[in-house]
């Protein structure tokens, strides 16, 4: 479970870089700078994903606590 989540986080973090690593600045500036908007939307998803991941981890801890008590 823990490993799965770690892999998920790494994929979330690295995926945008995989897209932009192959490109140069001209790629983002091509076709009316549309890819800067794509970057912003990716970033929005990334922020929400990281925030939800942290919440997920907290809830897991809580679940473990309840399991240990019962």
């Amino acid at each position, binding site marked *: 479970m823990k490993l799965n989540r770690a892999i998920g986080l790494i994929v979330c973090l690295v995926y945008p870089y995989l897209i932009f690593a192959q490109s140069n600045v001209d790629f983002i*500036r091509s076709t*009316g700078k549309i890819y800067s*908007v794509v970057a*912003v939307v990716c970033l929005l998803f990334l922020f929400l994903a990281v*925030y*939800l991941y942290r919440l997920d981890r907290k809830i897991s801890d809580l679940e473990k606590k309840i399991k240990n008590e019962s």
Partner: protein
Amino acid sequence: MIKGLWWKMLGVILFLYVCIAGFVVPLKPGIYNASPTNIKAGQTLNLSIEGYNSHYKSAEELTAFLKFDSIQILKATDIKVNSEQSIEATFNIPEYINTKKKIAEATLIVDNATDGYSIMPAAVFVNSISKTPSQVDWNTDFVNDLHQVDAFAFPFRNILYETIRNTFFHVAIWMSMMILFIGALYSSIQYLRTRDRRHDIHSYSLTSTGIVYGLFGLASGAIWAKYTWGTFWTSDIKLNMAAIAMLLYAAYWILRSSIEDLDNKYKLSAIYNIFAFVALIPLIFVIPRLTDSLHPGNGGNPALGGEDLDNTLRMVFYPAIIGLTLLGVWISDLVSRYLKLENIIQEKENIL
């Protein structure tokens, strides 16, 4: 907080609509590039014009103008169409242009029946203007001949181009953050009035989500700035004031985690939350308008009006604010439900 599932689904649907409509609706036709930009007076200018979303080849009544001021307007003598996006216009620049400056600045206007007219400010600079006034044949009545085409499209703005779509994410997230912080303010006041732990939990979860939204606002603004203003961070007043506001709210997190005594912790964080909100309003909305800023809305102008936010943008922008707010409230709801459960467990432990 809010009961039921409908508002969560509404948030998802609105955000999906924003992602689809925000990307699918095209930009209005415009002028992407024109070269050369410098010409001596009295010469023939062969201006190659690059259009964006334009239909130069298939359009009828294609004309081009150079506008020096409201009276001095020069019509292209000849236009060679290369493709839908590319034309070459020939202008006979006169020896004399009535201007106080050494260099005359001309706005380029390209007009046709399909796209309507599109404008590029400061497209051509004319130097070495003759000092002696002479008669020039200007096309003063051209304004009546321009085509006005109403299309369902976002406005084409130079430098911005497609990044105008960032309005739905960058600007909307700041608005959503404000709504979340207003909710947190309300909960803080409620906590101080009733000393009910639930209000503190609501206030904390809304503030946390608001801070994440604000951090995204700063980061997305940096990306937008990189591709329009040239750098990730400038000394623009609104940027720095927003960063200070986010630091103020980050201190809320630190304050909360640094107080051991629970009653004091809730009370102080509620008071600090009210203070942070009161500081946020002048930092983001007042100070940037008193001085010059790169953001729209400097010098006291309304930021969300006029040409910056037309009706087509509004049709996506307002749903974006509502959708992002609902998603933010949803996440805050999850946080507060977690905190309530944690509270119950802790109380149980205390009894044991």
